[in-house]
């Protein structure tokens, strides 16, 4: 199967059973077909113009790298349009969530690979961020004027 060619890290949670397994299978079947979803388990499609950011070879969650080619293609896979060029264009067409592309997205929790983002959304498991991640938000955006 294609699984054997997959470079994604293996899931660290036990395989889901029963209803949870069914949800995961439905999510995979639909989202892989529509968005080429990579099942990161912490879906932010609405912040990325409905373009899966995990398709970016650098797994960038916050925007394009500096290597986007002048024709808008990917530096790593020159035959592919840059995921973030597509994401930007997609975000402009969204009636809702248009500005969510400006949100700072937290680091990926790699333990959620291959789990259902729908389940993680309901259980709020996808809200988990490193303990000090949000603390820096207490400070002003910059110290250009004063310390």
């Amino acid at each position: 199967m294609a699984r054997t060619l997959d470079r994604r890290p293996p899931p660290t949670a036990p395989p889901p059973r029963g209803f949870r397994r069914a949800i995961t299978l439905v999510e995979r079947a639909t989202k892989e077909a529509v968005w080429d979803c990579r099942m990161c388990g912490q879906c932010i499609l609405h912040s990325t113009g409905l373009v899966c950011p995990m398709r970016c070879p650098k797994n960038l969650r916050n925007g394009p790298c500096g290597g986007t080619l002048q024709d808008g293609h990917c530096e790593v896979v020159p035959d592919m349009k840059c995921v973030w060029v597509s994401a930007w264009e997609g975000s402009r067409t969204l009636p809702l969530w248009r500005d969510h592309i400006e949100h700072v997205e937290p680091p990926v929790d790699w333990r959620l690979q291959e789990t259902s983002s729908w389940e993680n959304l309901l259980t709020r498991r996808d809200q988990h961020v490193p303990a000090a991640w949000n603390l820096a938000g207490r400070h002003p955006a910059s110290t250009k004027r004063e310390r």
Partner: protein
Amino acid sequence: MSAALSARSELHRLLLAGEFVVTAELQATDSADPRSVAALADVFRGKVDAVNATDNSSAHPHLSPMAAAHLLTDAGIEPIMQFVCRDRNRLALQADMLGAATLGVRNVLCMTGDDVSVGDHPEAKPIYDIDSIHLLRIARVMRDEGAYVSGRQLTQPPDFLIGAVENPFAPPLEFRPMRLGKKIEAGAEFVQTQICFNLAKMRLFMARCSDLGLLEHVWVLAGVFVPRSAKAVRYLRDQVPGIDVPKEVVDRLDSVPPDRQRAEGIGLALDIVEQVRAIPGVSGLHLMTIRNEEAIVEVIERAGLLPRPSSVPQTVG
């Protein structure tokens, strides 16, 4: 706070003082001999305010930026230490940030990094555990919260000026200023741009950053390349992803015989320097080249940017 204007680094002090700063990129070395860095440091000493210690630039392994930054400090030059997300996960990046701070590094530059596919080890496993915006926030957490991002406390937090990079010349052009806004929100205090040949794009980018209010929060250092030959700009155009090299630039260098291309390259860089200095919000230059360091110094000299304020001994106040 009494430390209202105490700067984190010499670069920070100059930026706070409103000086037009000049930084340069250290040619990555492949030598186990520390004199390889010292020799390059000799070229730049007193001519620039800080020097970038690059982190496996173009995805080729080179002397570790930690070592290069340390050797620069020893040679009397303030380093800006790069951290790319390609080669290390969040544990290693935080460990190295703390380690750099113990060795006296006071400026860090957080970036994603060129992909391994453009380097000489394309079969390597790329890491990309976090992206550059995550790394900026983590640097900010370590400095301002005195903790690893996990929340575990540091005994003594690092104190550094946090920098980012941005490419105003690559698609999606409209999103690039917003992305800089995200970097500022994450923690960036200064930014070095990708190499600027296309001044129209640079002006547009700066105008948009100004509209978004970003220039109140970040110092922008414009990247300028000093080509040694027409071959060098063709290399940038064809081999380095993300650089916009307009046809006029290649034509200008091609229009002179090879023995005069180095001088023409200096003239080209001087023209770009003059024009970027006139763009509102540009706080300094970041000069780059490929094995042509003396030309960087010549550009600084002929642009009237010498003597550097940092080379004048400061009275302790």
